[in-house]
């Protein structure tokens, strides 16, 4: 009980302080903070979030001031950084990595007037929203192109960690490839890192040595694209258009585009209309898109992948529509049924056609 009152007292003091700061808001620009797990120069995940931040700056010149903190380790440090942003007058704070979830939730409870948005997590609160993109839609569409282009019927997938997000992506890629080429198989290699150019390159080379001729990746460096370029096989870029790293190999890329979402959420705060929401959108909201296809890709293949993109965008096609079998051949999704979001969110099994195990 004692604790309760003390907590409440602390909250009241904080609220007072923020209220006072709020009255000056009319003149002062809105401060928006971003916390990144990687360096903004990774040309991958954090880079794309930063592009979103820059889009916010450009859109709201004079009205919004943004701050970012890069390379924040997931662990004890995140809470301090998030808290410091909250304490220094940031009214809206985006924390962009799954490992920031519990720290964000903790700080959100201490700063009820500040709005928090956490990417890829599942904890929400009155002032804590979540957002994520349906990257698997892009993976499915790129899988269609990969399934058409492979000559060996061996596709490779460089995976980071066995979390549902990554498993879902590998599955969507496999389903996309097999929708046009039932003989295609996807070999999954785990590198246990989000960003490790050395390991990613090794994984790419190992896959190519096994006869793989299209490589997809769920890691952030451009090393696999470069390795593919040297060996003359196709590669699908991750997070941003990586064509400059492999002018010959870069088939397309699954581009994360957070600009629209970030602008909309900042606008909502400026309008006083922000509410805690749970956003999970894909092609339809422009959060995911395919990078321009390599000019060497045959027009028919490109057209087919783009058609799939359109169908997903208009909700005519859902990548996880049954029948879907798992690796053992057991039917997991009945014909014609679409997997529920809740099941997609906790997916921890591979579909038929994936070669490789989940690390157990």
């Amino acid at each position, binding site marked *: 009980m004692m604790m309760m009152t003390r907590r409440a007292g602390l909250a009241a003091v904080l609220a007072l302080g923020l209220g006072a700061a709020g009255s000056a808001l009319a003149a002062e620009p809105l401060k928006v903070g971003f916390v990144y797990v990687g360096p903004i120069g990774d040309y991958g995940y954090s880079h794309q979030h930063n592009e979103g931040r820059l889009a916010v700056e450009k859109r709201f010149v004079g009205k919004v001031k943004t701050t970012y903190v890069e390379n924040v380790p997931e662990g004890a440090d995140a809470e301090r950084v998030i808290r410091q942003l909250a304490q220094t007058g940031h009214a809206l704070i985006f924390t962009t990595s799954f490992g920031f979830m519990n720290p964000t939730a903790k700080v959100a409870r201490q700063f009820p007037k500040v709005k928090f948005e956490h990417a890829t997590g599942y904890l929400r609160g009155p002032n804590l929203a979540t957002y994520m993109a349906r990257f698997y839609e892009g993976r499915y569409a790129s899988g269609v192109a990969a399934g058409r282009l492979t000559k060996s019927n061996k596709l490779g997938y460089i995976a980071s*960690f066995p979390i549902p997000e990554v498993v879902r992506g590998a599955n969507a890629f496999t389903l996309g490839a097999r929708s046009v080429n039932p003989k295609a198989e996807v070999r999954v290699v785990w590198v246990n890192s989000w960003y490790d150019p050395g390991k990613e390159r090794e994984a790419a080379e190992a896959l190519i040595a096994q006869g793989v001729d299209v490589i997809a990746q769920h890691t952030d460096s451009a090393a696999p694209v470069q390795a593919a370029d040297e060996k003359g096989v196709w590669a699908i870029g991750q997070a941003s258009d990586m064509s400059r790293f492999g002018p010959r190999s870069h088939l397309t890329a699954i581009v994360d585009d957070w600009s629209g979402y970030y602008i909309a959420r900042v606008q909502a705060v400026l309008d006083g209309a922000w509410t805690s929401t749970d956003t999970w959108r894909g092609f339809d909201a422009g959060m995911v898109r395919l990078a321009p296809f390599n000019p060497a890709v045959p027009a028919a293949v490109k057209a087919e992948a783009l058609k799939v993109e359109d169908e997903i965008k208009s909700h005519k096609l859902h990548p996880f529509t049954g029948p879907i079998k798992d690796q053992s051949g057991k039917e997991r999704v009945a014909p014609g049924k679409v997997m529920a979001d809740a099941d997609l969110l906790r997916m921890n099994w591979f579909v038929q056609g994936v070669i490789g195990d989940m690390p157990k």
Partner: protein
Amino acid sequence: MPLRLEARAEPSRAMVFAAPVIAIAATLCLGGILFAALGFDPFTALAAFFIEPVSTVYGLSELLLKATPLALIGVGLALGFRGNVWNIGAEGQLIIGAVAGGGMALALYDVSGLWVMPCVLAAGVAGGAAYAAVPALLRTRFHANEILTSLMLNYVATLFLGWLVHGPWRSPEGYNFPESRMFTDSALLPLLVEGTRLHVGVLFAPLAAFATWVIVSRSFLGFQIKVIGMTPAAGSFAGFGPRRVIWFTLMFGGGLAGLAGAMEVAGPIGQLVPIVSPGYGYTAIIAAFLGRLHPFGILLSSLLLALIYLGGDAAQIALAVPFAVTQVFQGMVLFFLLAADVLIRYRVRFDAPRSVAS
């Protein structure tokens, strides 16, 4: 005017203390120039980096929180370094300490009581020490170089923790995300200052430093470590071999690293996650040398290194200084310290070279 280094007859005692100060002063000067070159006002930037982070009670509490694992590990490592035992595996020992402590917290998930938290810490110490016993055994039994074995075991520890949180210890409520359940309040370290994250574990750092100082300066074991560190052969002439020193220093350092790991997960983190340390085990090596391998010096150097981390984040938020500057600062401190060490054994002469020199 030619500048010349002249060997001192005796290492300068004054310089032992002055060298770190000179190093820090040089770092600040060059840091100021660096900031100016990047287009920041050097004084504002240095203030944002080094003063503002610790200008509040909360900031100070974060400084102590961050310095604690560095100090604990650094103190333990330094004891080994004095005895020529090069434990580079503190990161792994920290992780196994976190695993053991976290495992205890999860095993006692349904239990509450004042004894739960001490069990968590004890498990952390035991885990870290046991993990350090591996390189100790390999060194004493097979003469395998402990630098390599302990370093390699760091990767094993990281993967082991990853396997646990992706697999058997994964939270049942966590949507298959790699994290354990949140520990219960009984397993967590009580807070020292309400409203901050500073927990009682911070007190272990000065305690460990004091205990280490007693060992080094007041015990026969400390004497053995020193002798073996300076001249291994002299030790064996005197009738004591390096085995005991290797075992003791590795287990001691491992135990303290394990304690640091358990305190991270039972403190600010509150659960097991794939990454429990931003490289404390490696940074502590810098802390040990920056503190001249002296327990109390290491307390100070840990505070300095913690401040550089905190300052890096703070300067990013306040002035949009890039993250790389933090790493440059760390590098500069170490570089200047090693450079300033020359002054302990040499003095700088500005006069013309004398023929009698040497």
